[in-house]
């Protein structure tokens, strides 16, 4: 009876021949693009939250140094960021993190989509069918043996088995195609909602980028004005950008020239503007990435194939910008580390 059930099911499956195949390959491509896009965007948004939480240290340093420049008597005492401001920044960071959480969840949806696309139901069902056929044949053989050695007629003859095999493959394909297209629609809906929500918050994130870079720049300027950082951190990249070679002793020339020091300060402020634009660009790139994904979801629905070139391009730009940001942070850290080492060596001498 079980064998009959299998035959009926397989027969129905065989009728499904000619249906479009499950778009596993394009779904995989789209899922991978979605994972990349959400991963980069989430990192960018979390970075904003982290910077908000970590702003107090540099902020307290800057404000105290500025207060200490005042000629007013007795004011040069540590001035920590007021608790009200710290709490506001932390509260804002929590709310920003909710955006990253939503983006991460979308990433989880793409991960599930990728897993489904990686699964080959056609082959799985064919394998299951084959073992069912083998079992049915074995059963028939055993039954024949019990029936006092009468000729064994396979429960599922080989030719029919092959046909059923094909039918199960088509059934698996069709079932998976249906699931993939349904998942495609579900995820596209979530992408659209997230994209619209985040687009509506663009102005807040643009000001936040400006605000956070402004905080960092203010602290860097204090380091510079107080001669805590080398002017070469600014001068060397500028010379490279202009394709000129600095003469030996350039650092002491700068140190002895108020005009050069002021000019480098202006360069720092100009670099800060670029940093703001890059941070804002990364956020916009995140939204553009979601837009590109939406287009590819529509393509998958229409043609069942996708080209994720534009998604890849946007994500590559975003990653390149992030890498540049990480490198510049690292370079600043290295420069500070080198300076500390130099100071230690001088002290030892």
């Amino acid at each position, binding site marked *: 009876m*079980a064998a009959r059930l299998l035959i009926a099911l397989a027969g129905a499956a065989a009728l499904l021949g000619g249906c479009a195949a499950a778009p596993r390959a394009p779904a995989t491509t789209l899922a991978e693009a979605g994972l990349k896009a959400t991963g980069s965007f989430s990192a960018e948004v979390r970075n904003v939250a982290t910077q908000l939480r970590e702003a107090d240290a540099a902020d307290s340093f800057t404000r105290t140094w500025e207060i200490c420049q005042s000629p*007013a008597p*007795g004011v040069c005492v540590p001035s920590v960021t007021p608790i009200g401001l710290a709490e506001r920044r932390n509260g804002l960071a929590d709310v920003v993190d909710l955006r990253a959480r939503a983006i991460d969840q979308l990433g989880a949806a793409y991960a599930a989509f990728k897993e489904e696309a990686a699964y080959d139901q056609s082959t799985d069902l064919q394998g299951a069918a084959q073992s069912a056929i083998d079992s049915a044949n074995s059963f028939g053989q055993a039954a024949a043996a019990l029936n006092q050695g009468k000729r064994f007629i396979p429960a599922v003859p080989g030719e029919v088995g092959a046909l059923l095999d094909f039918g199960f493959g088509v059934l*698996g394909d069709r079932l998976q195609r249906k699931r993939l297209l349904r998942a495609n629609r579900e995820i596209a809906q979530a992408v659209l909602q997230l994209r619209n929500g985040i687009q509506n918050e663009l102005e807040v994130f643009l000001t936040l980028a400006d605000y956070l870079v402004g905080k960092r720049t203010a602290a860097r300027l204090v380091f510079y004005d107080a001669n805590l950082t080398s002017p070469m951190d600014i001068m060397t990249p500028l010379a490279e950008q202009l394709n000129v070679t600095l003469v030996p002793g350039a650092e002491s020339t700068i140190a002895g020239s108020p005009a050069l020091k002021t000019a480098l300060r202006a360069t720092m402020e100009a670099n800060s503007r670029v940093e703001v634009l890059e941070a804002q660009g990364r956020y916009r790139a995140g939204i553009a990435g979601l837009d590109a994904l939406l287009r590819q979801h529509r393509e998958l629905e229409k043609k069942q194939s996708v080209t994720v070139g534009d998604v890849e391009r946007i994500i590559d730009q975003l990653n390149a910008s992030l890498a540049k940001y990480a490198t510049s942070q690292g370079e600043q850290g290295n420069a500070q580390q080198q300076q500390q080492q130099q100071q230690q060596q001088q002290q030892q001498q």
Partner: protein
Amino acid sequence: MPSSSNNNNNNNNNSSSPRDRLTVIYNAYKAASARRASDLMQATTAEEVRAITDNVDALEASYLDAARRSLDATGPDIEASYQAALSATQKVEKAYAQGQALAARIQAVSGVVAAVGNLVTKAAGAAA
């Protein structure tokens, strides 16, 4: 300074949108913050120093409040998008599991058939 080019202000009159207000508040903070160092260098009393820093702090607090209000206003949309993504994830995972279960069910049936076959074989052996 952030641009307001993406402003969805549908008002035809002169009333400001929350985004306009956010930008105005932010620019006020930014200008005061940029002036703080030079203002402090000119301050000659502790009261003046306190007034300058309090002023910038108040503007910064206003900006952070405005940013928070804006994000809180769109919070339900973001929460809805999170729920949509969560629902999509769960549906995709569930459908996938159900899809796999079909093959598993067929395997189970064939297992039963094989088990019955074994019993029959044993019975045949006993009968011989």
